[in-house]
């Protein structure tokens, strides 16, 4: 009996005691601080350096196969799934029942509370065992015989249930093995793949046991990167912040001018570029339309339609330019309205871009169809047109995608792209018997990535001469969740507390470094993507006496919204003056290229 309990403990240790989750793929995160976190569906945020333990629930997998392939032994699959689920629930509850019985066994210390605990604990185990016992007594003499063997030795109450789960585990293993054999005989194979989605590109990543892809380059995103203070990039930013501070202090620039390059500005720029490209289509389209070539005559209506679509797109671009061309810092006060209008417009732009692309494709295939019968000169024009059309279409698609993506980030958080998730020939085809039940995905082995990247895991099934079927998919968003240090070059506006500093205005702009301590959250995209509150130290290059020689200031700073809002209190050691300050990360919003993380 001791061996039986040991076996059950081993099962628990192996993880089969976890509560069953919906779906085939269950994920668990192990972070660099040795924390372990179940990744529930809908809460899919993990630390960027964690290892993901992927488990394949074969019982759920068989059930899903039965749904997709009607010839599978559905009844047996259902039984296997039911019994496995009951075993898991029973094993989960068994330790508590054991403890509750021990607590109850001494009559001298019995209380109503203990009775209630006992009832609850026993109920969970009994309810898990009942369907197994019903199956054994009504449908499976083999299982009943297995249970009888184990009950013959005067078991304790806990052992009697353990015996049921143990016998059921043996029984269900045999049953599952029979089912698997039949699935394999039908030629059903399974493939599991993973992809990293970062910077608009999806790259297949290695899953041990599931593919022959090479292991990715080891890249641990540093958590304590104080050396970033000295990076050339930050030095350059610091110089730019210093220049901006000088311009503001000497009143050559206003604070508002920092926001010149805003998201609407980027939209206008993109539209202008697209319009310029589209305008270049006009000449070749006119030439082709006017050509007397008999083969082209039948394409005239197609050419007309294309010209109209191009003109419409340009006109729509002009409307948007008029709408957003003058949006400046004044709009920042009404961001929600601005972004909702912007989102609607970008959606409209997407639809128009798609329709324009369809038109281009029609024209391209029309020209291809008559290419051989065209005169040389006309053919050269049509070739030029094709090249230009392709260029414009690619430009428009890229701009629309970037704009759409950026608006989505602002409204919903980053989207994980899944455009090109195809199983390459390096993804192994397993039968259900040989399919590994678990694997580890070390995110540090997924190469170049940063906060906001996505990982997609898919498991699919196929059969000779029938299309591959997606059975389950999990998507993860990678952020810096564990505590980390971020260095931000910031432009601060300091108000000296000491009177008579010689400043001509209340605030002095100054470049600074903020060394910030941050931590992400596993349940909030908003927190990780936008809010990012932090506390840290601010080191500023001040000049309270306006003598062009820099004074060092050191302060405590609180930061939020990607460090675009900072507030703090510091001390200027050279001027011997404390100061309050507000600050913002440099460069300011909008000057980051749109669509780039």
């Amino acid at each position: 009996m001791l061996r039986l309990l040991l076996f059950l403990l081993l099962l628990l240790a192996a993880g089969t005691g976890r509560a069953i989750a919906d779906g085939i793929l269950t994920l668990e995160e192990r972070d660099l601080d040795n924390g372990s976190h179940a990744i529930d569906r809908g809460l899919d945020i993990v630390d960027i350096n964690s290892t993901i333990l992927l488990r394949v629930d074969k019982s759920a997998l068989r059930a899903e196969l039965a749904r997709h392939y009607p010839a599978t032994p559905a009844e047996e699959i259902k039984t296997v799934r039911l019994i496995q689920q009951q075993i898991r629930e029973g094993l989960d509850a068994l330790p508590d029942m054991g403890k509750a019985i021990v607590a109850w066994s001494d009559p001298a210390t019995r209380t109503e509370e203990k009775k209630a605990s006992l009832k609850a604990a026993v109920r969970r185990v009994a309810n898990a065992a009942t369907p197994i016992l019903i199956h054994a007594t009504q449908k499976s003499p083999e299982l009943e015989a297995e249970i009888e063997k184990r009950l013959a030795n005067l078991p304790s109450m806990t052992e009697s249930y353990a015996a049921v789960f143990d016998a059921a585990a043996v029984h269900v293993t045999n049953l599952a093995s029979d089912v698997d054999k039949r699935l394999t005989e039908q030629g059903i194979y399974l493939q599991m793949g993973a992809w990293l989605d970062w910077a608009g590109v999806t790259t297949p990543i290695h899953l041990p046991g599931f593919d022959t892809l090479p292991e990715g380059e080891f890249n641990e995103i540093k958590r304590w990167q104080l050396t970033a203070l000295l990076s050339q990039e930050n030095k350059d930013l610091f110089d730019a912040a210093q220049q901006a501070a000088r311009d503001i202090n000497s009143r050559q620039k206003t604070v508002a001018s920092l926001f010149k390059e805003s998201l609407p500005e980027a939209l206008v720029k993109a539209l202008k570029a697209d319009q310029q490209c589209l305008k270049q289509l006009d000449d070749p389209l006119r030439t082709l339309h006017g050509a007397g070539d008999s083969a082209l005559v039948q394409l005239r209506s197609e050419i007309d339609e294309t010209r109209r679509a191009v003109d419409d797109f340009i006109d729509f671009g002009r409307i948007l330019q008029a709408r957003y061309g003058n949006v400046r810092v004044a709009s920042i006060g009404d961001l929600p309205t601005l972004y909702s209008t912007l989102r609607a417009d970008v959606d409209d732009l997407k639809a128009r871009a798609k329709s324009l692309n369809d038109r281009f494709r029609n024209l391209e295939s029309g020209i291809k169809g008559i290419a051989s019968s065209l005169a040389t000169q006309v053919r050269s024009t049509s070739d030029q047109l094709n090249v230009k059309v392709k260029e414009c279409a690619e430009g428009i698609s890229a701009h629309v995608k970037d704009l759409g993506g950026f608006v989505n980030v602002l409204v919903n958080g980053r989207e994980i792209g899944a455009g090109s998730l195809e199983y390459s020939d390096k993804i192994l085809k397993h039968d259900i018997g040989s399919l590994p039940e678990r694997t580890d995905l070390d995110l540090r082995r997924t190469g170049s990535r940063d906060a906001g990247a996505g990982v997609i895991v898919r498991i699919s099934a196929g059969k000779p001469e029938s299309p591959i079927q997606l059975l389950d998919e999990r998507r993860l968003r990678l952020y810096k969740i564990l505590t980390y240090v971020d260095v931000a070059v910031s432009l601060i506006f300091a108000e000296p507390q000491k009177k008579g500093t010689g400043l001509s205005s209340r605030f002095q702009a100054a470049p600074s470094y903020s060394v910030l301590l941050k931590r992400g959250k596993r349940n909030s995209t908003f927190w990780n993507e936008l809010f990012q509150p932090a506390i840290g130290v601010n080191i500023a290059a001040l000049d309270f006496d306006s003598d062009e020689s820099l004074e060092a200031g050191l302060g405590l700073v609180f930061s939020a919204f990607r460090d675009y809002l900072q507030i703090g209190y510091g001390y200027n050691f050279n001027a011997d003056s404390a100061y309050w300050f507000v600050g913002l990360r440099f460069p300011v919003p909008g000057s980051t290229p749109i669509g780039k993380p």
Partner: protein
Amino acid sequence: MILRKTTILPTDDAALARSMFDDMVHNQPYYIFVALGTGPDAETIVQRADNLTGNPGDPRWVIWARDPKLIKNSVEKLQNSDRVLSKLGTARGFSLSLSDEVCNVIEGTEPVPSLTRILLAFAEAEGS
């Protein structure tokens, strides 16, 4: 026949049988299997049920009512008694929850219950 956690009700004193039954059911905190009747089959059932009662501290117990009609009045007062009341003379046994509810009845038409079948009766009482 060695019984560890079984109360055998008398057949010659109806009042005592009822009193013992009521005390076990209402005052003692046990999930109970009530075995009914006499003869080799009943003895087998009692022995098997007793084997499943576990350690002394485990909250399972067996009552053997060799003359079921003696406890009819008491059974009548139990929750869901209609499940067994009309079959007291023929059923092989039934289980009772901690809240004194009739949970699972082993019918007279069933074969002599195995350990598994009796455990099912206990499980239904313990899961209610």
